[in-house]
């Protein structure tokens, strides 16, 4: 391929009607460029079809191998031009678009001379850059069209069924002996008051029947390696002692088993045998030996008519190869024992809401009799303590657990139907869902006593307990005896889920729920490609929202695996392998954990790399570079933009290319006005900038440099947008060592809605630099020497 000065570059400068031409002297720009490049042309409307055809023609006729289009923002017509040039056989990496409308003519309408100079500078920057550009091809990678779903609650069941329906092979891994999750423990669900077993068991049966679903119960994910699209998963099958294929769930084993232990399904309110089926509708319908409790008396294996019991089962391991993973591991309740004033675990009359669910179940430990479980004494009055640890920054959890108000209302209705007196102590009744306010009203109609004010303590009182709280409506303290107290604790993520998240390299948020890719716009995707999440693992929610998310996550996974994965040519790569000493600094800097050190060298995973560029400046040996945004390209663009410039003050504004760049375009659209000294160079994230880039800019004519970065959490590259600010601060002080005053560096975060402020930002910085004066020539010369 031709390089450097032998290239045949074509430049088109658009007038955009008068949008550009009324301000920028397009003929003079074109004239200045003639002789510098092979072909220059002015156009009235470059985006019109005849113009695009003309570009294609000229590429062909004049044998052009690089194209520069000086026109409006690339956000407008990039796709049109790219497709046109691809048809003409030009690789998109060899096309540069120079924004001389939104970021030039529209914002310098009273400074024709300055705007013309700036347009010329920007085009020269692009010319220098394009000389360093090379053709780049995107790659595609096969994906494994199988999915792993972790967790067999209502979220895992729904998402598995949906994905299986669309033809994906689904491996559903559940840690317990049966799928069903927490939902199968509930006697009724709000607000429909459906029997949850009636609506969930058919779905559980579908899971066991579906040929596309490989149900793996009583198992854990032990290890996940590989990349999105091609994960290798090790699943550990726990010791079960029963052959799942042969067991006919006759129950002979459990009848002879002499060991009784607390029954988890009933929240420990009853007992089960060491060989057990968690509940009658369990899927798979098989027995399981609890080896922690089993005494190895072997009575079960002696009596089993199918001879399917293996008391010496050691468990086993299974390897899966999947393209995507859906996390649906659900929740557990916060350990309410830490709230001493409520006496859970101390007074038998105090139970958790999950225990109450089991008490209210006709097949529950009390046969649906409302009694104090430990004493068997009938309960004629029940008190609910809402926010027993939720909305508490001191001892519990800061967030609202979202479902407690509603399930307390549900349980209240069930209790009121039995004629039991109910009090509900609340801070706020939060019922913001479809049919939920109506459900609240119905509960009130049934005559429950709502008391606004948190319960402060529960103290013993004979066979009852005394509730102490306040009725805030009438400013009075409340104290009364009650038979049974139901605490509504926060919903939290289990330790197991946190370990799993760590294994999957999926970050969690400050409340320890899985962090969404975007909390509003991409709530079922995690921060890692190919790993999705649904249900309470992403945050407390009801069954309605959980199933909606499960359907959504299925769609995400199906989409993700629907075609080959395209790997864009924008990745970081080890350009000088011999310089890499495996120090690991790049591994540290990468926001995506895409870099590992393998056999003494940094290895960048092309699939995981998002192209933010944060690793490149981290390398102390300059061993890394980026496709399509090489150091050579960037330095050429910096030099080209500055060197031939006739501007008095020259300011380079490095700009994050999605959020901040869009805001600057909007400032143009609104015809705000700022000095023509500002020249914008877009970058994926400003963490891509090295100190050398800044030194080069100052050496070759810059008087000031701006970092216009995306907001910390709204940018597309996560941690890279935070790292850039740390680096900018470091660079400021390092520049002082090179006699460049740190006032010549400006860092701002640009929010799209704040585009109006850009006018002031640009003016302020321009004035600061004007006061400071151009950088001294001696300093520039010294810098050039240092840079070599």
């Amino acid at each position, binding site marked *: 391929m031709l390089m450097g000065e032998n290239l045949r570059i074509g430049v088109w400068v658009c007038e955009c009607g008068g949008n550009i031409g009324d301000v920028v002297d397009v003929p003079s720009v074109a004239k200045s460029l003639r002789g510098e490049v092979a072909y220059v042309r002015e156009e009235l409307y470059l985006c019109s079809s005849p113009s695009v055809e003309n570009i294609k023609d000229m590429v062909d006729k004049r044998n052009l191998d690089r194209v520069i289009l000086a026109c409006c923002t690339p956000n407008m017509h990039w796709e049109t031009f790219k497709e046109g040039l691809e048809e003409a056989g030009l690789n998109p990496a060899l096309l540069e678009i120079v924004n001389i409308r939104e970021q030039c003519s529209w914002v310098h309408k009273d400074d024709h001379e300055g705007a013309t100079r700036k347009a010329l500078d920007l085009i020269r920057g692009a010319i220098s850059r394009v000389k360093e550009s090379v053709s780049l091809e995107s790659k595609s990678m096969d994906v494994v069209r199988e999915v792993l779903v972790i967790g067999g609650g209502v979220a895992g069941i729904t998402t598995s069924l949906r994905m299986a329906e669309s033809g994906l092979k689904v491996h559903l891994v559940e840690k317990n002996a049966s799928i069903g999750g927490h939902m199968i423990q509930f006697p009724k669900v709000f607000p429909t008051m459906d029997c949850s077993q009636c609506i969930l068991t058919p779905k559980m049966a579908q899971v066991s029947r579906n040929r596309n679903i490989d149900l793996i119960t009583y198992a854990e994910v032990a290890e996940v390696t590989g990349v999105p699209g091609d994960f290798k998963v090790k699943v550990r099958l726990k010791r079960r002692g029963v052959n799942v294929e042969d067991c006919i769930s006759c129950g002979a084993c459990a009848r002879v088993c002499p060991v009784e232990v607390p029954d988890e399904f009933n929240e420990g309110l009853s007992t089960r045998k060491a060989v057990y089926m968690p509940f009658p509708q369990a899927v798979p319908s098989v027995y399981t030996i609890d080896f922690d409790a089993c005494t190895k008396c072997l009575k079960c294996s002696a009596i089993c008519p199918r001879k399917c019991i293996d008391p010496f089962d050691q468990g086993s391991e299974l390897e899966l190869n999947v393209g995507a993973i859906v996390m649906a591991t659900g929740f557990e309740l916060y350990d309410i024992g830490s709230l001493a004033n409520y006496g859970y675990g101390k007074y038998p009359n105090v139970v958790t809401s999950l225990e109450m669910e089991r008490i209210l179940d006709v097949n529950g430990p009390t046969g649906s009799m409302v009694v104090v479980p430990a004493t068997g004494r009938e309960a004629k009055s029940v008190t609910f303590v809402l926010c027993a640890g939720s909305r508490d920054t001191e001892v519990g959890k800061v967030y609202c657990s979202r479902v407690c108000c509603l399930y307390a209302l549900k349980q209240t209705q069930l209790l009121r139907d039995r004629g039991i007196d109910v*009090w509900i102590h609340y801070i706020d*009744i939060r019922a913001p869902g479809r049919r939920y306010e109506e459900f*609240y*009203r119905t509960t*009130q*109609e*049934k*005559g*429950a*006593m*709502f008391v*606004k004010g948190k319960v*402060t303590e529960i103290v013993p009182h004979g066979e009852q307990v005394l509730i*102490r709280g*306040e*009725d805030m*409506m*009438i*400013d*009075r*303290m*409340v*104290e*009364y005896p009650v038979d049974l107290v139901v605490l509504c604790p926060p919903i939290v993520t289990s330790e197991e889920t946190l370990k799993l998240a760590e294994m999957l390299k999926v970050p969690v948020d400050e409340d320890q729920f899985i962090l969404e890719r975007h909390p509003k716009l991409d709530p079922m995707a995690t921060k890692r490609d190919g790993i999705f999440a649904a249900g309470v693992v992403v945050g407390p929610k009801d069954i309605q929202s959980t199933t909606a998310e499960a359907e959504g996550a299925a769609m995400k996974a199906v989409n993700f695996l629907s075609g080959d994965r395209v790997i864009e040519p924008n990745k970081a790569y080890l350009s000088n392998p011999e310089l890499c000493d495996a120090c690991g600094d790049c591994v540290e800097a990468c926001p995506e954990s895409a870099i590992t050190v393998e056999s003494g060298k940094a290895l960048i995973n092309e699939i995981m790399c998002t192209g933010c560029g944060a690793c490149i400046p981290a390398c102390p040996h300059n061993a890394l570079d980026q496709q399509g945004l090489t150091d050579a390209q960037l330095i050429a663009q910096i030099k080209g933009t500055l060197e031939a410039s006739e501007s008095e003050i020259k300011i380079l504004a490095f700009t994050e290319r999605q959020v901040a760049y869009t805001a600057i375009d909007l400032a143009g659209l609104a015809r705000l006005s700022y000095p023509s000294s500002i020249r914008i160079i877009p970058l994926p994230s400003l963490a891509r900038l090295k100190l050398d880039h800044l030194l080069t800019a100052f050496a070759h004519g810059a008087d000031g440099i701006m970092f216009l970065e995306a907001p910390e959490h709204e940018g597309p590259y996560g941690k890279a947008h935070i790292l850039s600010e740390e680096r900018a601060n470091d660079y400021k002080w390092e520049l002082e060592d090179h006699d460049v005053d740190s006032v010549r560096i400006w860092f701002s975060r640009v929010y799209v809605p704040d585009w109006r402020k850009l006018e002031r930002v640009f003016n302020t910085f321009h004035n600061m630099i004007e006061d400071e004066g151009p950088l001294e020539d001696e300093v520039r010369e010294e810098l050039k020497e240092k840079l070599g």
Partner: protein
Amino acid sequence: MSPGKSGQYLTFGPENASFKAKIEELSGENIDLCMQCGGCSSGCPLTEEMEFLPSTVIRYVQLGMEEALDSNTPWVCITCFNCEVRCPRGIDVANVMEALRQVALRAKYDRFSLDELTSEELMELPQIAIISNQRKLTG
């Protein structure tokens, strides 16, 4: 722990339930439906003259507390029905006030004693005013 303004803990007993039931029966309103939004009080034109706000009276009734009868509120109420119009849960608060007045009257509770009046006053005041003031003290 301080028991609050009235100097006593609020407790719930069978007598609370019967008082509430009585008011519900007399007024025909389902008091349980009140969610203490305060709409009745904010729409009431006479709250300045009331010892308790209408919504507070409703809360007392909800809790089954006979203290609902202790304030002048039911007597100040002029039955303008603004509260009924404003209530988002369809409770006719004026009906509840009427029920409270009835309960008070049926208890044969006199708001003042004739002994408190001087003989001049007794001579001056119309009989009907004295009788009605005994039973319905709106002043």
